[in-house]
């Protein structure tokens, strides 16, 4: 009975998590399309080589968009979360209400979040159109080249900052308050306490949060799908992979899979050394 249950559980995991992972690589070497019944051919590496050729526009802009998105989201999300965690770590009513508010977007989900911000930034009657109108600024916001990417970054941070905040709060609460009391008794100033106690002891939470933000920003595109569908300079690699596979004009699943394999490799190449670096930093700080 127990072995049967174990085998069943692992079989489901393999079938719906491991097989797709391998399948994605296999599909990336073919001309598989969404048209049922169409013959599938082995293309070798041509999906990969064409990515870097001029035949497939959109790859280089997607690399740029991905880098901008990942850097801005990782920095913004962690700095804001650190600030929030510092103020919301207490057990008072205000802190609890604040935690509830910053975590709320997790429950709302991408579709609702996207539509909320589309309503706020709608170009005709929204509050932001009125606000910027006061300064004579008129824009289509999510439909404008110079606005779309910064706004998408802001909404992505808005969506995920609550989770990072909670992890930082966990890290802050784990620090022994006696350390601060002893330091205060010795006349150590607030800045020095932050630098010598909080910063080093928070290092493990920083590692977790930075890694979550980097990997998340590299791979997710569902929010971009809702907000702009990758238009107006917001087509990251994840969005590009989706759009060439299922967008309105293309149905090139092979090429889309190749893009997602490249995205996966880039994520690993960035994330693994970063993880090693952050771990080493932890050891250095914690002595």
């Amino acid at each position: 009975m127990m072995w049967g249950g174990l085998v069943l559980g692992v079989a489901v995991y393999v079938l719906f998590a491991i097989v797709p992972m391998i399948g994605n690589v296999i599909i990336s070497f073919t001309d598989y399309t969404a048209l049922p019944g169409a013959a599938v051919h082995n293309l070798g590496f041509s999906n990969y080589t064409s990515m870097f050729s001029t035949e497939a526009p959109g790859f280089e802009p997607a690399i740029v968009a991905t880098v901008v998105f990942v850097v801005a989201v990782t920095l913004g999300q962690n700095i804001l979360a650190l600030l929030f965690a510092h103020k919301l770590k207490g057990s008072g009513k205000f802190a609890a209400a604040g935690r509830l508010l910053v975590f709320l977007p997790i429950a709302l989900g991408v579709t609702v979040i996207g539509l909320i911000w589309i309503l706020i930034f709608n170009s005709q009657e929204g509050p932001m159109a009125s606000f910027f109108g006061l300064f004579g600024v008129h824009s289509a916001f999510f439909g404008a080249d110079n606005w779309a990417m910064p706004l998408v970054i802001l909404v992505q941070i808005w969506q995920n900052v609550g989770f990072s905040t909670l992890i930082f709060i966990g890290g802050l609460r784990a620090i022994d308050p006696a350390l601060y009391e002893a330091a205060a008794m010795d006349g150590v100033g607030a800045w020095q306490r932050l630098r010598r106690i909080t910063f080093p002891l928070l290092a493990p939470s920083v590692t977790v949060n930075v890694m979550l933000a980097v990997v998340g920003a590299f791979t997710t595109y569902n929010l971009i799908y809702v907000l702009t569908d990758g238009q107006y300079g917001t087509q990251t690699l994840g969005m590009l992979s989706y759009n060439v596979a299922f967008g309105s004009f293309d149905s090139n699943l092979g090429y889309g899979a190749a893009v997602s394999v490249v995205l996966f490799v880039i994520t690993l190449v960035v994330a693994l050394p970063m993880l090693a670096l952050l771990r080493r930093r932890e050891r250095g700080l914690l002595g």
Partner: protein
Amino acid sequence: MRRPRLVSGISVGVLITLLFLLPVLYVVMMAFETPSHFLNSPMTPGSPDVSNFGNAWNSADLGPELLNTVLYSVVAAALAVGLGLLIAFPIARRLLRGHSLLFTFVFVGLFLPLSIIPMYAEARILGLFNNRIGYILLHITMAGIPGLPLAVVVLTASLASVPLELDEAAWMEGASYLAYLGRVIVPLTRPALLIGFLYAMLGVWNDIIGPAVLLADPSLEPVTKGIYTFYGSNLSQYTLLAAGVVIVSLPVVLLFIASQRQINRATLAGGVKG
């Protein structure tokens, strides 16, 4: 010393109110506006009007879509947690030789980016495309947070605190494995089960890429796809869209507030362990 801290505390409070409370309140306000009042003065509330809710409900077909969403998310999350327990118990009890290897094998599932493209291909090949059962099966591991690996991770940790003597007592009494899991283990690991279930459910409930790719028949659509399609085809009916957004998010928000304490505690614990 005291004053600057108070000032910075208040300014963070104002920042959170501006960024997190106002946008949500504004959309709720919009939902209660008549379209004509909203057109004339989008910034100020008029006399509350509830007709948007009925109109959105009918024209976006939200009723059947909400039923689909509840079915998909509850069943997929229950399967994720149930299968998660079946995997976690032998691992936590070290009943097989490669238990830590198996744990790592499932644990990496939390970080592997699942591309939707092979999920689509698999759905086509296995006959899981465009039907309810297929959609649910594919969502056991899919969506924002992969339900099954997460359930295995939290349950393995939680099972460590269930004393081995209970296993032995049940063994002596000759209880069947599943009855033992159901009667003894489930009540004792309830917080972990709840967290696993909630996260898996939220992931399925909020998924938008899955319904866009894995379903074709409008009658099978969950509510996220429904409201998104409604937005695409009624671009200027902002008050209706706002009412739809409120209807769609209300169930999860209520559930979220009701279970806030557990979510907080579990996430905080994860942060401490790092």
